[in-house]
Structures are given as structure tokens and as C-alpha cells.
């Protein structure tokens, strides 16, 4: 497969100083767009993807041949209506869908592996900011994203307070909790414990730490669902068998489901990228950037915020989303908030949850009318 032809890239010439102290330049940002930019250039929405997402938001992802990760929310006539809005999304740096990451080569033509600099949410956002100049957009209509995408949304408006009219952080947090870090560490340990990981040099060693990456994905996948959702979908149902087999094959449907999720993930994702991106999430603490006062992250923006959480999301629970609302209210910012009823856990923002999609659509369309 020749992915170079289907992946659009912007080469960022300007040096970017990373939080770790290193500077990168002449690096690629892979992006995709949907809809068209109007003549006033006031209808652009920058969408940020989550941990394992990429720039292919909707339609068929040309690399994986599966539906884009936010197909329920983005597209013609959908909540983020591409007949009306110009949607831009790019692969985060550290990622593995064309943007500068650990599978790229350094100046000596060696694959980076774990020599790639450790990046942060702040670095990701600063890199993506170059897309605004690329498209000649002075001010975005909106920045939106769920989970790690929501963290980028918060960081973006903090770094560039007058660069978006509206701000939509979904199912997210302003600071990664101990529980979040713990789950990410579990995933990283699974990858690095795989003998095929080879200290991160599996590409040059022609091995693949697929087993470790699959386990990381399986563990993470559980955190994206709710107990009730899992129970209703799988319960104790057996997988293509009448009775227990008294062995360690996948007796239960839930086991088979998780194994499948793990196996399809390794086909599309890079193990080192998983390490780098989870690290960036763990390092995210927006309040800490402002001496512990989260409100100070937003004092310079007049943007209209709309924050959305889900009842069954225990990974980024309602309270963590409300903490952002509280920080904004304490400085009199324009902020709306709704908690959507859903059994689908953290994944709710990616799924067909009509109350969520309606709220998103109504908020955007009404705010655009005020333009």
C-alpha cells in the first residue's frame, strides 16, 4: 500500500521548541480536511483526535479501510456538518499516521524509536497551530475533541486565546488522574515486556511487539466501556460453545471480543507511538502550568465554551469535566455544560448517542448563527 499518496502532509519549517527542551524543525504534520473553507474563512473547525485516533475523522479511512473514528458526529448533515463547516484534523506528533513520530528517521537516517523526544499535549497543539497559517485562517469557528482530544482543546485555547470563537472539550480532564496514569502505565509495561519490543528498535530488528501492544489495547479498551454496558452486551455468554471447556481458550464472548480488539489494533498502530502518546497524556496538567490555578489558563479568552460529559464515563468522570466548568465560572467566562445520560462509558462520545449528537449540533449551529 502506498500511503504516501493518500496522506496529506504539511512540512513545518519553523523550529518548534518542545517542553522537554529539544527543538524540532522541518517536520511533517499529516492532516485531512472535510467540507470547504468559505470565502470569509470563518467556518473552520479544528478537531483533535484521542489516543489512538488519526486525521481520518469521517468517511472511510483510506489506510485502515474502516469508518473514520468520529463518523457518527462528523459528516454531511451530521452534528459537525461538513456541508456547512470546514473540518481540519491532523495526526498528533508522536503518532503513527504520517506526522513526525518515533517510526521516523533522525538526521543520521536511523529510526528514532525511543530516541524520539518525549512530547506533551502542549507540543502537539503548538505543532498543529501551523495548520491555521497554512490555510490562511485568522480565527477558527471551533476547536473540538474528546478524551485526549479534549485536553488538546483546553491547551489550544489557553495557548491561543483569540484563535477560536467556540471551544468544545468532551469527556476530558484538565489533569490526568492517578488512575489514568496507572492504566497507561499498565499498557506501557505490557509493550516493553514483549521480547519483540527490543528496547524500541523492533523495526530495525524486523520484529513486532504485537502481543504487548494487544494486551495494552485490551486493558485500555475495558476502561472505555461501562460495567453495565459490558454486562448487557456480553454478560456471561459463551463463545461458540455449549459449555465451559476447562481450559484457557476464550470460553466467554467478552474474552473473544477483547482478543479481537487487541489483534485488529496492532495492525494499525505503532507500539512506540502508544508509549509516547500515553506519556503525553500522563504529563498533562493544565493547572500546573499556571501555578495550580486552572482559571488562569483561560483568563485571556472571550471564547464560548461548551463542556460535555457522560454519566457512565469512569475514566474521565463528570466531576473532572465539571472542575473545568467551575474554573471558567470563577472568572465569568461564557460556559455551558451538560452531562449526557449514556451506558456506553467513555466511548460514548465516539458512538451513536443521540442526546450528545443533538446537543453538539444545536450548540454549533446556534453559535454559528451569531457569527
Amino acid at each position, binding site marked *: 500500500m502506498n500511503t504516501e499518496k493518500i496522506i496529506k502532509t504539511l512540512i513545518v519549517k519553523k523550529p518548534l521548541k518542545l517542553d522537554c527542551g529539544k527543538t524540532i524543525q522541518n517536520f511533517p504534520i499529516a492532516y485531512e480536511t472535510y467540507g470547504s473553507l468559505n470565502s470569509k474563512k470563518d467556518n473552520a473547525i479544528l478537531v483533535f483526535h484521542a489516543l489512538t485516533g488519526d486525521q481520518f475523522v469521517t468517511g472511510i479511512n483510506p489506510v485502515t479501510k474502516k469508518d473514520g473514528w468520529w463518523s457518527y458526529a462528523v459528516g454531511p448533515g451530521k452534528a459537525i456538518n461538513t456541508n456547512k463547516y470546514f473540518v481540519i484534523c491532523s495526526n498528533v506528533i508522536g503518532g503513527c499516521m504520517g506526522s513526525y513520530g518515533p517510526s521516523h528517521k533522525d538526521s543520521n537516517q536511523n529510526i528514532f524509536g525511543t530516541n524520539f523526544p518525549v512530547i506533551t499535549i502542549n507540543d502537539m497543539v503548538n505543532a498543529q497551530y501551523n495548520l491555521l497559517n497554512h490555510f490562511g485562517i485568522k480565527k477558527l469557528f471551533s476547536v473540538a475533541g474528546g478524551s485526549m482530544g479534549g485536553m488538546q482543546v483546553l491547551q489550544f485555547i489557553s495557548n491561543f486565546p483569540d484563535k477560536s470563537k467556540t471551544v468544545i472539550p468532551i469527556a476530558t480532564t484538565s489533569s490526568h488522574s492517578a488512575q489514568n496514569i496507572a492504566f497507561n502505565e499498565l499498557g506501557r509495561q505490557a509493550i516493553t515486556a514483549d521480547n519483540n519490543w527490543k528496547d524500541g528498535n523492533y523495526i530495525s530488528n524486523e520484529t513486532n511487539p504485537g502481543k504487548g501492544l494487544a494486551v495494552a489495547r485490551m486493558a485500555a479498551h475495558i476502561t472505555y466501556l461501562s460495567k453495565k454496558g459490558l454486562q448487557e452486551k456480553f454478560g456471561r455468554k459463551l463463545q461458540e460453545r455449549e459449555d465451559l471447556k476447562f481450559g484457557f481458550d476464550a470460553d466467554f464472548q467478552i474474552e473473544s471480543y477483547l482478543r479481537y480488539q487487541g489483534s485488529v489494533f496492532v495492525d494499525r498502530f505503532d507500539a512506540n507511538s502508544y508509549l509516547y502518546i500515553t506519556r503525553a497524556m500522563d504529563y498533562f496538567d493544565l493547572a500546573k502550568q499556571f501555578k495550580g490555578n486552572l482559571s488562569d489558563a483561560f483568563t485571556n479568552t472571550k471564547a464560548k465554551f*461548551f463542556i460535555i460529559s457522560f454519566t457512565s464515563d469512569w475514566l474521565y468522570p463528570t466531576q473532572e469535566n465539571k472542575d473545568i466548568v467551575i474554573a471558567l465560572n470563577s*472568572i465569568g467566562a*461564557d*460556559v*455551558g*455544560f*451538560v*452531562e449526557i445520560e449514556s451506558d456506553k462509558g467513555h466511548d460514548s462520545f465516539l458512538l451513536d448517542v443521540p442526546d450528545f449528537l443533538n446537543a453538539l449540533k444545536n450548540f454549533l449551529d*446556534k453559535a454559528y448563527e451569531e457569527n
Partner: protein
Amino acid sequence: MKNEFQVIADLVEKDKKVLDVGCADGTLMKFLRDNKNINIRGLEISKEKVQECIAKGLTVIEGNAEKDLKQFPDKSFDYVILSQTLQAFLNPELVLDELLRVGKKAIVTIPNFGYWKVRLHLLLKGTMPITKTLPDEWYNTPNLHMCTIKDFFHFVKSKDIKIFKSLGLNNLNSSIINESNLGVKNLFADLGIFLIEK
């Protein structure tokens, strides 16, 4: 729009910043935004009502007045409105204090338990009164702390809260309530509207 909202809207000057606590479907908020250029925010506990507000393009926070008012800084709104909800709180005194902390002024409306139809209902039928402003049965009413216009009037005075304006509403007619006509208004108004400040 109901007459109560018209009376409330008349109490608010143009171009102010207003918080509507228990804003329901946002009818009053929308009116204030569209007709008086009010910078309006809402707080609402019902998810369905919050969705209706979003569909009107209103800025609303899903939340509970008893817990969530504390996130707003002192005097951060010119007016805070509380329409017919005070009696439904576990601790109305605390909520009233919070309204007056967050707002430079507050507009509070209360269904009047001293209204003659309410009194007559209890006197003649001997069952809990059901009227237009008190539509629920005793077993499913959200109201925990019913009061009369007279009760509220005295309560506010005892807390050294300044009453700028108090109005009694009966169907379409609103009239000023003062110390001297309190007894009469307490009998003939089914709703009391108070503009107060601390």
C-alpha cells in the same frame, strides 16, 4: 410567555448580566437576551430542559442550585433570578444567601400559600390545596417549604435584606406590595415577586 416573566423582565434594565437559576426551558432567558440585550446564563437541574436551552442557543449549566451556586464569584451578576423554586430547596435560607452573594440584586418569586383560594381549599375541603401555581398532590409535590407572601416579607426583613420592590400578581394584574397593604395582598395575590439586595 407567562405574565410572571413579563413582570420580571420589566424589573431588569437593558445590557445587564443575569443568571437565571432553575431556568427550565429557557423561555425567560431567551426573552431577556432577545429583547433587552441581556448577557444571560442559566442553571438547570433537568437534562431535558438543558437540551431545550441549548437548542435555543442559550448558555446553560446543568447543575443544582444548592450545590453549584458556590462556583460563581461574589456579585458576578447584576441580577440573579429564582422563579417559583425557593420553596423546593432543602435549605431555602442558604440558597437565598447564595443568590444575594452571587448577584448584586436578586429577583425571587414565590407561590403564595396565603392566597384566598388556597386558604378556602384547605378550610372547606380539608385536603392539601391544589391551584394553578400549586398544581401537585401532597405526595408528589417538589415543594418542601411553602410560605406566604407575608412570611417571605417578614423573613427578608429579619435578615436585613433590602426590598427594592415587591409585587403581588393575580392573573394578569400586578400591584405593589407594601407594609400597609400586606394583609390584603397576601390574600389576593397568588404569586409574590421580590426585588431584593443585601
